[in-house]
């Protein structure tokens, strides 16, 4: 059975066919249990030898993982988070899905989880309850509006000992720079509406020259025993460029 994804039909075939019919596939190892079906995998499964190709022998090429753009405001926010967390021992930084997930890679290596949209806040609450401190949940404005509000209400109701850092770049950048559902200025009201203490809701500018200042602010909120929210605002570089182009086209 050559089946992409989960061995669904293969499993049914195994139950359906009389015992004497051999079924091979992902479940019995002829096809690897994970990964997509490509010509190499199918050839090997069918016992067809690989084709000769040009040799890469002796050649070690560097990987080229994707990275944050030059001057991306998320980078400045991560530098501030790293600075604020330096010196603590039982830290936990959960994160979410977006360009900022690239902060898991060097040179930042700043975040430790990425599960599904909105998971950062719920996981941070769990980590706080398990005794981690300080705990930071990093979430972008797009992901926050998509599915970060419900877990924030939960964290606020419990006054969980954690800090939510909303990286507000005013765009859903990774999927093609879509506009945010609501303007940046209303994020504050939404956070307050979720029940967050206004004393511990801080809005900062993710400017490269304000990294240290923002780290000091963040550290103050990390030391607060309870829930705090820091919104780091600065427009996505790609969104800004796109906006400038549109304005130029209109003019």
């Amino acid at each position, binding site marked *: 059975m050559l089946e992409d994804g989960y061995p669904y039909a293969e499993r049914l075939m195994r139950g359906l066919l009389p015992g004497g019919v051999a079924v091979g596939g992902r479940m019995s190892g002829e096809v690897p249990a994970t990964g997509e079906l490509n*010509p190499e995998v199918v050839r090997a499964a069918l016992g067809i030898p690989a*084709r000769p190709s*040009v040799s890469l022998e002796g050649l070690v*090429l560097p990987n080229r993982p994707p990275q944050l*753009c030059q001057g991306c405001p998320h980078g400045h926010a991560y530098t501030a988070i790293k600075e604020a967390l330096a010196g603590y021992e039982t830290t936990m930084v959960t994160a979410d899905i977006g360009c900022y997930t690239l902060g898991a890679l060097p040179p930042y290596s700043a975040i430790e989880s990425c599960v599904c949209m909105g998971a950062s806040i719920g996981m941070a609450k769990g980590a706080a309850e398990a005794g981690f401190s300080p705990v930071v949940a990093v979430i972008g404005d797009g992901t926050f509006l998509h599915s970060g509000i419900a877990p924030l209400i939960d964290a606020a109701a419990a006054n969980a000992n954690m800090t939510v850092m909303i990286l507000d770049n005013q765009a859903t950048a*990774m999927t093609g720079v879509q506009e945010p559902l609501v303007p940046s200025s209303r994020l504050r009201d939404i956070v307050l509406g979720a029940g967050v203490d206004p004393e511990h809701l801080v809005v900062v500018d993710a400017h490269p020259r304000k990294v240290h200042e923002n780290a000091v602010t963040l550290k103050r909120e990390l030391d607060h025993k309870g829930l705090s929210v820091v919104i780091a605002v600065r427009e996505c570089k790609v969104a800004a460029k796109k906006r400038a182009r549109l304005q130029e086209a209109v003019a």
Partner: protein
Amino acid sequence: MRYDIVLAGVGGQGVLSMAALIGRAAVTSGLVAKQSEVHGMAQRGGAVQAHLRLADGPIDSDLIPRGAADLILSLEPVEGLRYLPWLAPAGSLVTSANAFVNIPDYPPTEQVLARVRALPHAIVVEAERVAEESGDLLAVNTVMVGAASTLLPLDPAALEDAVRTTFARKGEATLAANLAAFAAGRRAAS
């Protein structure tokens, strides 16, 4: 007839634009084209590749098996070398000479280019210089399509038409620069 091309480069360089130009020319020439791509990393500086298969009959899979590509067309030398396992022994690597260095462990460029030149069938084009001389530094990918046109099973006029159709709406200066870039790329590879 069957012709398999692996296109390579770094996100944002225009790998998919090259695939679109060649694919358009193939379809207007009456061929069948099938393309599959890795995207989403555009603008994020990661490795990007596309498989483009041309044939005069039905194409079953949109993926090129290892060892089957007739051509690797690359906007960057390391990215071109990365896909050598896909190149058939008689296939060609056509690459820009210009390194895109956004990683700390990029090997010495001369070493990379020497490795490219040591291949049995390789064409290296100073694509940035050629694009700049053609009037638009952004036309590097059109230069490389011009270079590949010396090997592709397509009438260069069909490729030139594809350049014209693609860039006509981008203004006269951009169109002229891209037509010049195509011609200059073709000359550089001849």
